[in-house]
């Protein structure tokens, strides 16, 4: 998994910061974004192996990130993280397109395992 590329999008800095620190420790290359717009700009230029995105964000939200990623790179896996209250709705709406869902707080170990599975397929 050395150098595999992960993008993390969440409008709270702490989520990206923590994810980056934890994932870099496992040898991933990680870029973080605080909102969807620059993230999609970046994705247009470069492919990432896994995109971890928050569902509810101002402006471009997780749904739109998902649609764009799938259009650009069908094989890129998307992991959606969301506030617990939105989980059911999210699962219902996005069934099939998303590799995994996690309610926040997300156990980092579980997120890592999910990324691992995404990359194995």
């Amino acid at each position, binding site marked *: 998994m050395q150098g595999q590329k992960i993008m993390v999008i*969440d409008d*709270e*800095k*702490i*989520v990206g*910061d*923590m*994810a980056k*620190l*934890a994932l870099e*420790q496992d040898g991933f290359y990680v870029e973080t974004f605080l909102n969807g717009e620059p993230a999609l700009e970046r994705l247009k230029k470069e492919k990432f192996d896994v995109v971890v995105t*928050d569902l509810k964000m101002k402006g471009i939200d997780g749904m739109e990130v998902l649609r764009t990623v799938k259009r650009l790179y069908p094989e890129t896996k998307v992991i959606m*993280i969301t*506030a*617990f209250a939105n989980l059911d709705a999210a699962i219902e709406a996005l069934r099939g397109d998303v590799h995994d869902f996690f309610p*926040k*707080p*997300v*156990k*980092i*170990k579980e*997120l890592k395992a999910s990324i691992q599975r995404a990359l194995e397929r």
Partner: protein
Amino acid sequence: MLGRIRSLLGLAKGSGQEAPPFRTVFKNFKEVLENNNRALEIIADLGDKLGGDYLFDINYIKSAYSDLAGAVYGSIQNFDVLTINRYPQIHEVFSRIDDHIKTLIYDVTPSRGEMVLDYKDITWNMFREVGGKNAALAEMKNYLKLNIPDAFAVTTHAFDAFVAHNGLPEKIGAIRENPDPGALERLRTEIMGGEIPPDLAVALQGAVERIRETFGRDCFLAVRSSAEEEDGDFSFAGQFETVLNVPARSKAVGEAYKKVLASLFSENSVVYHKMHGYRVGDVKMAVGCLVMVDAAKSGVIYSVAPNGDRDILVINSTWGLGTSVVEGQTDADMYMVKKEVEPLVVGTKYGRKDSMVIMREEGGTVKVRPAEEMVGAGTLAEEEVKALAAQAVQIEKHFRRPQDIEWAIDKSGKVFILQSRPLRIPEVVRKDSDRQEEYAEPHGVLMENMGVVVQKGVGAGRVYVVRHPGELDRFPKGSVLVAKFDSSNFVRVMPYVSAIITDTGTPTSHMASLCREFRVPTLVNTGAATRLLQHGQEITLKAGDDGAVVYDGIVRELIEYDDRDLPKMEELFEFRKRRYVLRYISILNLVDPLIDEFTPEGCKTMHDILRFIHEKSVGELVERARYGNDMAKHHMAIKLDLPIPTGIMIVDIGGGLAAGGSAQRATFEQIASVPLKAIVKGMMHPGVWHADAVSLGVNDFISSMMRMPDITTDGRDYAGYNVAVASGEYVNLSIRFGYHFNMLDCYCSDNARNNHVYFRFVGGATDIVKRSRRVELIAAILREYGFNIVTKGDLVIGRLANISRGELEKVLDHIGRLIGYTRQLDAVLNDDSSVERFVRNFLEERYTF
């Protein structure tokens, strides 16, 4: 005499306020427990989720805190009813703490825009205003209680005001992208020639005046940079100006202040800015003004060896002020210290210190040559090295990352910390995490799949078995604490303990929250730690997500792995900022109910409030249930029929007795109250309840049989019964045998957090020597069962809480035996050695005299 006993027991009825019936009291008590539990579970969850293993966002903190505040407030409301509003201050305390927390959660700046702030008013989260250096120093002063010089901060608001007042924003903006040396120099000149805005001048003068009032008119200050971003993510080490030995007069301080501000626009500083992606004007400058320490010696500590060895710290030291060490201009002494709990000096190198910097009497500093005999001599005594090392370890532990610390020792030998900032060190080669099993393999497994992990991590050391709180005083630093019960008293050794393993306990106990706060690897509820682990044995505890293992011996590789492989979330500013909220939620300050601060005003966190309420609610319950005899008159009291003549009457307040029995008498089998049943079972234990007469000394007029009601008749219509007020999970038992008065208040449910025992014993009617022996004996036995004991004359009070139902039933069984055992004890306690003998007999279950 009886009046005295009564008042000692608190039997005289209290205030004029109408007390609610006991059933209502009990119902409120239970509601307090329920709310407290809910609150403690949320606190435990917050500690867990904010511990570094989870990605969390502010929404989680907001919603968890809102639940928590609701539960704590609910608890306060029940508490008000229970205590008939005896503690109105608790409301104020709650809103104050609630305000603090909301300020943090909702990111409201705590600032009111002050230009100057005394260190005592600075909290860590104010670093945007006071800069990283000031914030860290204030934190060490206010929170770690380290010796920091008296000081004040000139804030970034003052910086903004200065820049605006002197018309500089446009000039700074003009060179934002492309600062050429000439423009920078012109900017610096303008700052040096600038005017201090009037309101800043007033604030500065006030602060300087306060310093002069304390330290005299001739004192001097160090005026140092504390840039906004100088916090940790970038150290800016040595980029900005420091002006030493500035006379404490507003004009001189103002000049020094401008000099420090100007250094923000030095060429070096701007290069450094650019290197880290900042542009000119992005960083604001706060300043710290500290009272000068007239240092006999001073220097720098790296809390980690520069080669990355985290077990070693390095102290550099020279004569006089430390500037020459900081700037690397002198050949300083070097002490290498191994970071054991008792720091061990492992290497010493004396430099040739042929110059030293000292304070000039008229201000400023001067470089002089030390006396010839000082040039090659060591600057620090071993004790000083150890004292510095201990503080460095404490600071590193607190900030949870390697530190670069400036220190000084003044002419009276007092140690001062002058600065601490994160130290960047090279990453060392990591142990392979997959090979953990392999490292541990040669070591025998002492415990596996036992207990509940409270705090993950690896801890190793010698086992020190703590049987009662007094033994904590002798706790060897760095040991593994092993105990039967968990106890918040352990906070006394938290900073030095390598790991904690207990037989009983829960992850939501007070101790558990302390362990999480101090990050002490902790395993509770193992059932057998005190049996399986030997006092003095070397062990390693590895506590992780999938349970815990205790290895025989010290597995060094596991410790190193643990130390280095966990992501260092603490290095993230956002993480530290969010976690800071726990300081007002989960830290427990009210550890000991017997300290003076155990008051509503002493509560500094939500956890403190819960602790206070629980302790006082138990007290309230005990107080009310004492009127059991009154209840026996007003309620249906049912006689307990036992093979032994206890004379116990039961007042059933709900579920204390099995349904369907007789209205007058109940048998042992019909007792449904869990705690009462356990106590009575103990009383009936073979051999405990002596019928044999014991020969009495002439000073004793107590018999081994119950005497009543003759000696208790003092004109009031005392019913003379032994009364148990009982529900399914609760009992308050008042027992009087002769002059002994024994009271036991106990809650025993499936939730260990709720459970408590309050034991009270008063005796009399025997000579004073025997009385004190009896107190000694009861106290010694209760301590063995984990009670916290207070004795006063002939009174013994024992408290025990947070204990699982199974354990508690066992304890109560033994207390039942103790009640029987002590009935006739005085008569046989003939000499001091007999106390020890009878304690031993009791603990070994030999009850015959």
